[in-house]
């Protein structure tokens, strides 16, 4: 009866199912000019605003300020996009009343999340490429001046963004559609704490302790160090990577628990109503 399908637990079937999620989202992106516009619009607005701020500050002869602020804007977009695009993929399943269709396929939770993550990666790469080009053309700031450190910086932020998205999705599963505002805003909770645009030393001492447990803190401080001419702070990057592992583990555990809860309480069914 199902000889036309790969054995459901085979690697080929898993790849095919993850590919199904990615292809679906890519097709949705292609068919929705608003979403393509959005990829370019918000990052560009941020870049232009902060760009002019830095031009103003440069006139005041503040050292490194141009590169650190523009670098922060670019790296922040990686975290923001990584988080929002995964959440968006999930919310679109809710908005189109398609979530139950997804949950009655053989797709596992891990495969579903992997599909969303892979798709978000393509959008983040595109978004950063647009912003990087604009930063260079408009303000002469080349993101590649950060050097090889860009790789661990981006990796840590991507993984953190995905972890936050999975946590946000879990909140929507737990509390229903009304909680979707969490999907947009959770990442912004970390913006003031992580010292995106300023060193965490300006924070109150209690918040500095909190900040040390946020992976992004180490990335943004690391970026400022590198742009100031210091070597790549690998110890910081190692700490950030370790924290990322903890964040992802917690997010996945939260997702597992909330999905089980949603099935037990019949909440999953209500997403189809």
């Amino acid at each position, binding site marked *: *009866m*199902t000889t*036309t*399908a*790969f054995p*459901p*637990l085979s690697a*080929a*079937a898993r790849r*095919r*199912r993850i*590919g*199904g*999620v990615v*292809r*679906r989202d890519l*097709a*949705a992106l292609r*068919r*929705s000019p608003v979403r393509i516009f959005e990829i370019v619009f918000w990052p560009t607005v941020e870049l232009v605003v902060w760009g002019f701020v830095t031009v103003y500050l440069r006139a005041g002869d503040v050292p490194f300020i141009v590169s650190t602020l523009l670098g922060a804007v670019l790296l922040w977009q990686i975290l923001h996009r990584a988080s929002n695009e995964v959440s968006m993929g999930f919310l*679109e*399943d809710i908005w*189109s*009343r*398609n979530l*139950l*269709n*997804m*949950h*009655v*396929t*053989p*797709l*596992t939770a891990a495969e579903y999340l992997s599909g969303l993550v892979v798709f978000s990666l393509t959008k983040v790469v595109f978004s950063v490429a647009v912003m990087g080009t604009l930063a260079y053309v408009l303000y002469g700031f080349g993101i590649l001046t950060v050097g090889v450190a860009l790789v661990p910086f981006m990796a840590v932020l991507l993984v953190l963004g995905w972890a936050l998205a999975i946590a946000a999705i879990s909140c929507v599963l737990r509390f229903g559609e009304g909680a979707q505002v969490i999907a947009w805003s959770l990442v912004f909770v970390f913006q003031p704490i992580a010292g995106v645009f300023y060193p965490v030393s300006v924070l109150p001492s209690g918040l500095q302790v909190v900040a040390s447990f946020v992976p992004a803190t180490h990335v943004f401080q690391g970026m400022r160090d590198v742009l100031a001419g210091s070597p790549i702070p690998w110890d910081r990057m190692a700490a950030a990577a370790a924290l990322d592992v903890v964040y992802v583990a917690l997010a996945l555990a939260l997702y597992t628990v909330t999905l*089980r809860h949603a*099935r*037990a*309480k*019949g909440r*999953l*069914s209500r997403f*189809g*109503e």
Partner: protein
Amino acid sequence: MRAVRAPAHPGRVAILQADLLAKRFGPVTAVEEVSLTVAEGEIAGLLGPNGAGKSTTLHMLLGLVTPDSGRIRIFGLDLERHRTEVLNQVNFSASYLGLPGVLQVREVLDAFARLYGLRRPAGRVAEVVELLELGPLLRRKVIDLSSGQQTRVQLAKALLNRPRLLILDEPTAALDPDAGDRIRSLLVGVAREWGGAMLITSHNMREVERMCDRIHFMSGGRIIATGTAAELAGLFGVADLEEVFLKVARQ
């Protein structure tokens, strides 16, 4: 009310076996002591008034709702422990579900063909497109389709993996009588040809009489009677299934 238990198709393999399912949502008992089997090649109906527990039962059989107690075995496998293997051979369509509106019909079907791990998605999509006469709609966005056309796309999605068990929650609710009639014929034909099993809920009693080999009648979260349409009418002392429905609903 007295429950009757018609035997499942003797000698046929039970595709679906649910034993003593129960589900409560807070103080509300949605489903209680529901046991049912669906045999290979059988089209079974699940009937009952609104709030009888039909959809909750179907959702438990699909793994969307976890039963408080009871056991579900599909193809001889425990649903909870073998979810991926089971769902690979099951499909579902319901009048209340949607599909990604911005996608074209061909993109929706291609995505779901992949979600079911099909080896040759394009070939299978072409088959279901022909079966449900979706050719002219292939390049149209789902959001631009009428509700009847969307139902046909949902059904095409539900047939993509040649399911051994097809679960349909009011499959023809959005269709006009002509389209509904053609879809019923198609579904019966598909079930007979593939030898798979179907479990259907519907409020269209003629549809149920025409399609179903056996009907499980639910009320107040329980299956109160099981049998053919004629057997149920006889049991309740009325002329047909519609009168059975009215009698149960008004009691």
